[in-house]
């Protein structure tokens, strides 16, 4: 150990920021949005009452949650080509992460939908709403408030999980750090810096979560 190379730190700040802004953050945003859409679909499938449909959703969630994300990424990027499906790193990463987020978030969404009181469904039915309208206008708006805390956890995990796509050669924050560190062998400095970047992003997200929860609770009894 020969102390921190401050010059290296200075030279690395911007490239790492670029890895964050051009890799980690867009990956997080895109896959969270896609994953959330998938999660709502899976949750509705689970709640559909049709045993085949809910069985498919249940099996999907079980498989995704029961296997490592890194392995899923390897299958998409390294194994699919042998079936004739060749994807670039970025599409592979987006697909892998979205499928993963969808499975985890679907449990949060399902729980939130189930947590909306039965009386809300019944009231909607008695004013004439069909199932679809009830879901869209009555249940999902209330479920989304209930789902904020668990989904925030999913989002924060996702920020960190995006680092796994460095293994399929997507240039994001961790891979940028690896690439800068490799010629210098100063892994401590670069990985330390990357850790700080991740931590700051997660801090900001936690802060945003608190504010969102406060805002969404304005129409709910104290």
């Amino acid at each position, binding site marked *: 150990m020969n102390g921190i190379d401050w010059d290296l730190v200075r030279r690395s700040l911007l490239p790492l920021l670029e890895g964050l802004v051009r890799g980690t953050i867009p990956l997080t945003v895109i896959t969270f949005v896609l994953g959330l859409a998938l999660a709502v679909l899976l949750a509705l499938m689970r709640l559909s009452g049709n045993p085949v449909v809910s069985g498919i959703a249940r099996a999907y969630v079980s498989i995704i949650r029961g296997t490592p994300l890194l392995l899923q990424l390897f299958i998409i990027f390294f194994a699919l080509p042998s079936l004739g499906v060749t994807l670039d790193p970025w599409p592979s990463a987006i697909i892998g992460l979205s499928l993963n987020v969808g499975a985890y978030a679907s449990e949060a969404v399902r729980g939130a939908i189930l947590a909306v009181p039965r009386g809300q469904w019944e009231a909607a039915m008695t*004013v004439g709403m*069909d199932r679809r*309208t009830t879901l869209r206008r009555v249940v999902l708006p209330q479920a989304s408030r209930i789902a904020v805390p668990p989904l925030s956890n999913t989002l924060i995990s996702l920020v960190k999980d995006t680092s796994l796509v460095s293994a399929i050669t997507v240039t994001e924050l961790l891979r940028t750090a690896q690439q800068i560190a490799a010629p210098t062998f100063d892994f401590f400095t670069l990985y330390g810096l990357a850790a700080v970047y991740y931590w700051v992003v997660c801090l900001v997200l936690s802060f945003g979560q608190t504010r969102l929860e406060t805002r969404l609770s304005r*129409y709910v009894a104290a």
Partner: protein
Amino acid sequence: MSAPLLEARGLTKSFGAVPVLRGVDVVVPAGSVTCLIGPSGSGKTTVLRSLNGLETPEAGTVRIGDVAVDWATRPGRRAVSALRDQSGMVFQAHNLFPHLTVLDNVTSGPVLAQHRDRAEARAEARDLLERVGLADKADAYPVQLSGGQQQRVGIARALATRPRVVLFDEPTSALDPELVGEVLRVMQSLAAEGWTMVVVTHEMRFARQVADQVLFLDGGVVVEQGPPSEVLVEPREARTRQFLQRLLDPL
């Protein structure tokens, strides 16, 4: 004499192995008020919810106007919602939509379900809020209202779909005693305006003053029915007398 507006015959329902309704008839002429009374667990709520398909009886028929459902034939979702559209419901726990303003609660049926003109629905909703004494609360959220105000919004929301019958399930039971009057007065004025109402209630004064007929339920059957001056004042059945006695003198 013309056919009654609402006619339910032979409603039968069990929860698991427990029979809860054992052949209940409810016949409601247009413009009249029917009160369902009876001890806890006698099946009042189940009867009311069978009239709009929130419960599914095993047998019996319900007809409102010219929309009829025969429960024994296991009617599909469409048939049940056609029946449900004939009535509005006011719940014991109000069940207002907490994420919508008072006005949006009242217009939820007309706008989101009936797809009526939005501006027209809002104007009509404001009139309804005026009628229940809440014109100044249109932009409030339900959580900002007292229990009595919430229940009056619930009434306005139920009326907004222009139902032929309004069903009330113990609309004042969850309220602090000093708030009961404001809700009952609104209901009384609706009755005076000619709304057809079916009301599950423990408010005997309301039943005596407003009801055209009272049905006393016990053990899933209608034990006694008739005008309040008979059922509530000089009941024929011992079980009715006992029930009324206990209400008058709980100790």
